[in-house]
């Protein structure tokens, strides 16, 4: 076989290039090893700082969160070290929660189910478990939920049940909703309708009748925009004799923000309610609709015998036109 000088030059060049890459490859391996060695040392040094860190703990925690999963084993060691102050174990757990790696799930579960562990640390680790499939430990989670009395801890456990067993989560949130108020009740309500959206009108309707301001405001706001809406349920509560002014006001407020066939008839009825809260909100609500839908009804009320009805209907006409 004859090889032309031109071809021979080409082959030589190719060989040269291959050699270059090979040498580069040989150089990169130790560099990469050195680099991962450096990172490990860096992680260890930061994790060690967390063992004794005080208020400046974010200086070590934030870089570890940025590193992410490679930092998990070193941090787990710190959390597991019972000789440390609880504070240092907790800040390490919080760092792990923020990394949110699956490598943290098993150690976190061990801490969660260890009754001899620091209760605050056990509560903290729940944040790191959110979103992971916990079906295998659903019974243990449910038992723990029933054994606990602290409302914040119970809420966190209920949140874990969301990814363990939704029927148990529903039971848990139902209990929380009926037992507590404020943030816990509000959070429970949101989760209940997330699990069973079809029941949302019923849950939110219960919500607007709650004494707790946070829950009732959330329920009211949700009913203003919810895709699941049953006007008849709300109207029947509105018409109940025992329904107080504030609940009636909330129902009027909801219909004032929804373009439902029942909205205007209910608002016109509410405009004639004796309660200042109710008829004032009805007047404001009616102004959100198209004039042609409202004016005729308002004109009928312009000469009503009741002063507030006359004034409010005139106010609506003036503001809607």
């Amino acid at each position: 076989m004859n090889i032309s000088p031109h071809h021979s030059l080409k082959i030589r060049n190719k060989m040269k290039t291959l050699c270059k890459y090979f040498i580069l490859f040989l150089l990169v391996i130790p560099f990469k090893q050195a680099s991962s060695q450096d990172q490990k040392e860096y992680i260890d040094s930061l994790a060690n700082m967390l063992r004794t860190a005080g208020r400046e703990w974010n200086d070590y925690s934030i870089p570890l969160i940025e590193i992410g999963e490679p930092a998990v084993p070193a941090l787990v060691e710190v959390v597991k070290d019972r000789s440390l102050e609880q504070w240092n174990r907790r800040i390490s757990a919080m760092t792990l929660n923020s990394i949110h790696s699956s490598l943290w799930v098993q150690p976190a579960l061990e801490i969660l189910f260890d009754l001899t562990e620091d209760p605050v640390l056990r509560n903290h680790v729940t944040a790191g478990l959110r979103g992971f499939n916990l079906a295998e430990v659903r019974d243990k989670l449910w038992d723990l939920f029933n054994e606990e009395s602290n409302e914040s801890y119970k809420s966190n456990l209920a949140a874990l049940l969301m990814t363990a067993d939704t029927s148990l989560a529903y039971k848990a949130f139902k209990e929380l909703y009926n037992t507590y108020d404020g943030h816990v009740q509000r959070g429970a309500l949101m989760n209940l309708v997330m699990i069973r959206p079809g029941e949302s009108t019923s849950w939110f309707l219960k919500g607007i009748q709650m004494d707790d301001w946070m829950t009732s405001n959330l329920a009211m706001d949700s009913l203003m925009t919810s895709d699941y809406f049953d006007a008849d349920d709300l109207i029947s509560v509105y018409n109940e004799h025992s329904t107080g002014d504030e609940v009636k006001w909330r129902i009027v407020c909801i219909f004032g923000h929804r373009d439902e066939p029942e909205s205007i008839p209910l608002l016109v009825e509410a405009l004639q309610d004796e309660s200042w809260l109710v008829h004032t909100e009805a007047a404001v609500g009616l102004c959100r609709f198209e004039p042609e839908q409202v004016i005729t009804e308002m004109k009928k009320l312009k000469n009503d015998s009741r002063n507030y009805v006359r004034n409010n209907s005139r106010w609506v006409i003036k503001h809607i036109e």
Partner: protein
Amino acid sequence: MKNVILFIFLFVFFFYGCKQDRYRFKIETIDTENLKLAPGYYTGKPDLPSPALSRDGRELVLLNIDNDRYTLFDATVENGEPFDYKRRLYGKGNQLLADEEDFPTLARTGLHSERELKNTKIITGRSVSQITIDGRPWGSSGVGFMSDDETIMSVIMADNRIVESLGLTHPDLARPLFHLWNISREFDNYSIDTITGDRIQMEAILYNGNEVKVEISGSRGWQESIFNDEILGSGHIYISRELNKEEREFLNQNYGNLPENKYEELKKMLFNIHTGELVFFYINRYGFYEGHTEYRIDPVAAALIFGMRSIEDVHIAVGGDLYEYFTSPFTENPE
């Protein structure tokens, strides 16, 4: 030429006149050329009116600092840099801003028109019923901005009537409150004696011949406004003053037949205010002093404490029964 002069006259009259109309209680103007403003001070009480207005429009208030030392402080009520706890901005905020969109008469004259109040169903884009629900106890705050049987409009209307019968305006009542607020905020900058290095305490604010005591303490976090505005509150502000001889005699004469506990309660309601800075802004912007809650700044008490009206004046303004006035909630809605 005549027309031009007339035009200039009318222009000046309307602009200057409208601005002045928001205040009915006039402050004396003084020449400030030779006065010692903070951090300078006087030993012994200077013979100066307080508050006073400088020729360039600055509002000056005399403070008693450490025993016998007095200083004149620039406490001008004005719109300044933003005041926002959330963003850690501690400027003066909008101290002169009135809600012109919802209450044009208030913005122009310093008092509401009842006709406007009767037609008010929305304030700052929120329905008045929503504001009422949020403002009642256990709404957006535990104590609330009004009592359970009051509404935002019943409170605004009742206070507007009382302020009018006092012959004052809402900005008149907001001004001394902003004065003490501006002084308290700035006082730390002047609280070290530049010669001795000693810490200077603020003993009292001298206001229309009265020594008004002020204590301010912070709290954790802040209170959101019930209106759709930027106003936030955080501090506990205690304002008080001692009764003078004439006031004691007047109260003894006219309210001496009250049971002792009610008599003491009345004195406390007349000469003590516990509130938050959020209410100062509310008064000027909406004519809202809060309803019957522990944070209310009663206009009668404010007019009396800051020496804008005498005990006799306020007794007459409320119809001759101060105890009844202070203890009755405002339940009548304008409609």
